[in-house]
């Protein structure tokens, strides 16, 4: 048993839902009480109307009855016509030993969608594990249906792991969209909210993976259709340079003149910031975001900007305890917080900027204030500078 004083880590299940949020041709049916689904939908930002619970009731628990689940599968198939329907267990259905694989096997011939069971869902774990499982299931689905997918012309870039589900995701995605178009004339295949149909991934000529948990899916694209991919979380200037190089090498197209203009401007801004920073008191940055993004942002802040960065581990790796309370990581009064909304809000005395899981006060209205990409890096400097004064 692990005891958390304030912020328990997000679960495997939530990670799965967050990964599946942007998939247009996927539905998820959870054999569980409806309260958990309500919580899920409050915690998955953006579209979540393709996630369902069966509203597990006492009589189903006592008699092990799965009739309600079977009806739910038929209803979702008829209403949403998903290509893939994932049937997921809940902590309660696991305790009563409901066999969801058997249900999927029984129902497969009655529905259009490919049914896949996720049973059991690990009782403990972290968000990243759940995302990995989701991407693995998506990969398995594509392998299964590849033979019936029509031939398509490859035209455009697909981004995996960045969408409206992510805090500031639409802004970040819009910057990526701009970079690809302005620098290479490439179009982004994700829609305005970052959503896409798994079966449309075949159209991509290049895949940019922003979440490392999406790598199994990117590898499957390569395996099935030879689609090249590149993984980077685009925080900072050097990641953008690297990306330009990778696209030139893998797709074989040269950058356009806009890239040179943009990078020259960015270099000038970076020099101005560093000069400004030299005359200012240095303050530690307390960086506590999801692990997949931590490394890239830390590199940008520490290596490119020359700042002192502290990355705690307590948030992301739950310690094993025998009932002792896991405390929040220690935050110094002068620390600049770049962290989850809740942690920022719990430390109103610190200069803080929300980077994930916002609370109400962090609602973003603009879709054009990126923190990723080249303009995102410039925005970061603007954001940090007043904190250093």
């Amino acid at each position, binding site marked *: 048993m692990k005891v958390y004083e304030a912020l*328990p880590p997000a679960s495997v299940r939530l990670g799965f839902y967050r990964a599946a949020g942007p998939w247009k041709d996927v539905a998820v049916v959870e054999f569980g009480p409806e309260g958990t689904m*309500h919580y899920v939908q*409050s915690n998955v930002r953006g579209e979540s*109307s393709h996630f369902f619970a069966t509203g597990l009731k006492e009589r189903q628990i006592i008699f092990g009855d799965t009739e309600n689940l079977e009806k739910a599968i038929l*209803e979702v198939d008829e209403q949403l016509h998903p290509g893939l329907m994932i049937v997921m267990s809940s902590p309660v259905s696991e305790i009563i030993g409901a066999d969801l694989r058997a249900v999927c096997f029984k129902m497969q011939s009655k529905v259009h969608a490919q049914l896949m069971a996720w049973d059991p869902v690990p009782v403990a774990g972290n968000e990243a594990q759940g995302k990995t499982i989701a991407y693995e299931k998506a990969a398995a689905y594509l392998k299964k249906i590849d033979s019936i997918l029509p031939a398509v012309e490859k035209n455009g870039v697909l981004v995996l792991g960045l969408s409206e589900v992510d805090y500031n995701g639409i802004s970040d995605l819009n910057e990526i969209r701009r970079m690809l178009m302005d620098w290479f004339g490439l179009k982004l295949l994700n829609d305005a909210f970052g959503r896409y149909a798994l079966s449309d991934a075949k159209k991509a000529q290049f895949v940019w993976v922003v979440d490392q948990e999406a790598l199994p899916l990117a590898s499957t694209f390569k395996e099935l259709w030879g689609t090249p991919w590149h993984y980077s979380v685009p925080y900072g200037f050097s990641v953008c340079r690297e990306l330009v190089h990778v696209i030139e090498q893998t797709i074989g197209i040269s950058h356009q003149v806009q890239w040179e203009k943009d990078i020259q401007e960015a270099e000038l801004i970076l020099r101005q910031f560093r000069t400004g920073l030299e005359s200012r008191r240095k303050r530690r940055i307390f960086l506590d975001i999801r692990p997949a993004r931590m490394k890239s942002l830390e590199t940008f802040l520490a290596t490119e900007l020359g700042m002192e960065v502290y990355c705690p581990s307590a948030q992301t790796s739950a310690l094993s305890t025998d*009932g002792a309370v896991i405390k929040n990581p220690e935050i110094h009064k002068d620390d600049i917080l770049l962290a989850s909304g809740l942690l920022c809000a719990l430390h109103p005395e610190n200069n803080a900027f929300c980077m994930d899981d916002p609370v109400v006060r962090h609602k973003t209205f603009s879709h054009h204030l990126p923190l990723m990409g080249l303009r995102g890096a410039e925005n970061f400097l603007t954001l940090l500078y007043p904190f250093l004064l």
Partner: protein
Amino acid sequence: MRLHEYTKATDVPHYSCAISPGKHCPLFGVGVVFQGMAGVTLIYIGPQDCVYYAQTDTLLRQLASGRTDGSQVRTLAVQLSDSDFIFGIRPQLEKLLEEEVLRDDTHAVFLVTSCSVEVLSEDLKGTVDAVSSRTGKRVSLIPIENFKTFSYFEGSEKAMVSLTSGLKTLPRKSKSFAVLGARKAGAEKSEPVRWLLEKGYTLQSILPYESNAEKVEHLTEAEFTLVVEGCGLEVAKRLEQNYGIPYVRFDKRLDLEHLTQGWRKLGKLTGEDCEPWIQEQLHEITSIEAMVSAKVSGSTFFYNQKVLYPFEAALFLTKLGMIPTCMFLGSAMDPDDESRDALVEKADPILWQNANQSTIKNMLNTAIPDYFVGGIMSSIAQQYSLMTFTFPINRVSTGFDFYKTCLHQVLSAKKWEERIK
């Protein structure tokens, strides 16, 4: 299911077996009650999902209400592993409970279980009682079973009862009263509370929204209590039964007879003559009702309001001449059969649990009512050319004021396109 077939709330069917998003979990209901309870430690125990959501929601709620200054409950999330479910957790849990309850500023500890823990039937009551008897301090269990409940209200009700059980009898404080059931700010502005304050009465506490462990311990000093929402009703009954503290119900906000009775009881308890004022209010209400009836009588309606007592609200509209044809039951449920029995004499609407918008659309395809009461997507309201209105959902408003506001809401109902103009 038709109204005449109704047996209990949990038997009302969902339109779909696939539910999205579903109702709040009762764990949420517990968090709502405890959010401002300084001096209390609330421990959620269960699998990672349940404790993550419950804990995060409680913390977010505290932030939203500006409680980061120590005037909030201390919450802990106890996340169980596979082996905990198999081998049990009693020794570690006892140690944790003991440490918590012996903290300097802690008056009481409440252990809140989730579905999985309840399904396993581990004897947590025994654990809690053992720690309580060893330390001489208050440690209580609040068992939560989402799969047995109709809505999160039951979590709030259980939490309220648990919070106020085992209180000591204290000497009454003259001219003092407490408000029960207010889960949001502003109960002091509601009609009966305002009136009592004007008459020089002291508001002992507003439970749960503006209370804390110390105030709860002094609850039995109140001369009487006012119930403003259903989750406070059971506590009021117990306070009367166990400590002789009378209560006045203002939770039946759309039942004019009960409202009037409530005011008369309040007059009796305070020794004030309210009758002339009550008559004035009833006279005014009668004239507004006549205007509303002239507009809506004979019109059909769908009902989809979440937090008022649904049968009482439907009966209120039926008395104005309207005819309910379909009702979507949300989170609140009438605490007794009175309104439902009266309603079934007049109408027999179809009942569904907690509709999502696609369910609403499917039902509109079977029969289009004249009015839609409660939440509906503007595009759907427009598509079916519905007159729409929503009753105020501020759960602490009550009294003749609230009743009149609701009448005016009906009177000002408009079609969506007229609303935009």
